[in-house]
């Protein structure tokens, strides 16, 4: 028997909300795991001494650092809200097709609102103070 080809999968399947939200959950989870390492590094710098802490803080406070922090904040917001969706599913709630579609939209909307609110609060207050 000649080697049978594998039928196309990822390349042809319609990228629906189901896959999109699921892969986004994974990506944000991975990204936050990376963020955890940075957080630990920042705490270590605090333990290491004043100069190390000042350097770490200025690094995170730079334009690049702020963009990364914003990305971590966005990841946290989505992962948290979609995590609640997963908890509901594991409790047997919201598994119907229609409910899953609606909850997906709500999760995205709530994550976006939460992210914008938190970003405004953190960054605007920071801008206001000297």
């Amino acid at each position, binding site marked *: 028997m000649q080697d049978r*080809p594998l*039928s196309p*999968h990822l390349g042809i399947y*319609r990228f*629906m909300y*189901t*896959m999109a939200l699921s892969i986004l959950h994974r990506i944000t989870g991975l990204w936050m795991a990376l963020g955890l390492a940075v957080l630990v590094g920042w705490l270590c710098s605090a333990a290491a001494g004043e100069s190390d802490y000042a350097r770490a803080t200025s690094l995170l406070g730079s334009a690049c650092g702020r963009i990364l922090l914003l990305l971590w904040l966005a990841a946290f917001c989505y992962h948290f809200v979609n995590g609640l969706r997963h908890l509901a599913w594991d409790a047997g709630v919201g598994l119907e*097709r229609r409910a899953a579609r609606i909850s997906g939209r709500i999760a995205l909307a709530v994550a976006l609102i939460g992210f914008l609110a938190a970003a405004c609060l953190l960054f605007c207050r920071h801008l206001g103070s000297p």
Partner: protein
Amino acid sequence: MAEFTLPPNSRIDKHAGKHHAAAAGATRPRTFRVYRFDPASGQRPRVDSYELDMATCGPMVLDALLKIKNEVDPTLSLRRSCREGICGSCAMNINGVNTLACTQSCADLGGGEVRIYPLPHLPVVKDLVADLSNFYAQYAAVKPWLQARTPVSPDRERLQSKEDQEKIDRPSACILCACCSTSCPSYWWNGDRYLGPAALLAAYRWIVDSRDEATGERLDALNDPFRLYRCHTIMNCTEACPKDLNPARAIADIKRMMLERTH
């Protein structure tokens, strides 16, 4: 392990596709792009395009495929039987979603081209015919039959209440078309060890059957990081099911039963 790209022998040869133009005088032409693979040719898969006159074609995608096979290109291979959504033979990927060609109307696909591929991530036998051996083996692995030890007098049936029957009513309606399992990314990457939504829906159907007495053994058999727990509630299965069943709910219920019996 997840292989996101196709192996070299499976990649579509973009230059090999043949075009079959509509007959002269076609009033409502529509193009169908169909995946083709001929094991005898020794060549890679290709995508042929067929222009059909929808004015002389039946309403369903299966009608279009049979029109191609009967009138344009008899070399096209596909499975079909009942043409009314009960046999599950003509499951395939149509415009990116797994469904039955016989119950999918061409008009519901909007305008434009119709893209038809075999069910995803399976070995292709020929054209739209994919090898479902692994899928059937997984179905057999969940022992889809009644297991009861309590003797019943030969002149009596095993009775169950109307409520108990209703629990298995919907899951029993599965036609094993494989639309759900082959829509699941988790099944694509781990189809050798993850049972997939169809087999798990079948397992669920026997787990909740009030007459079945092997519930514990059935749950034991599923208690495995891969067989059951590769389900990450992506929900592609429930979205794809042409019979409107809910494998995702069945799997979530099994996971909860696993949890409940340990407490």
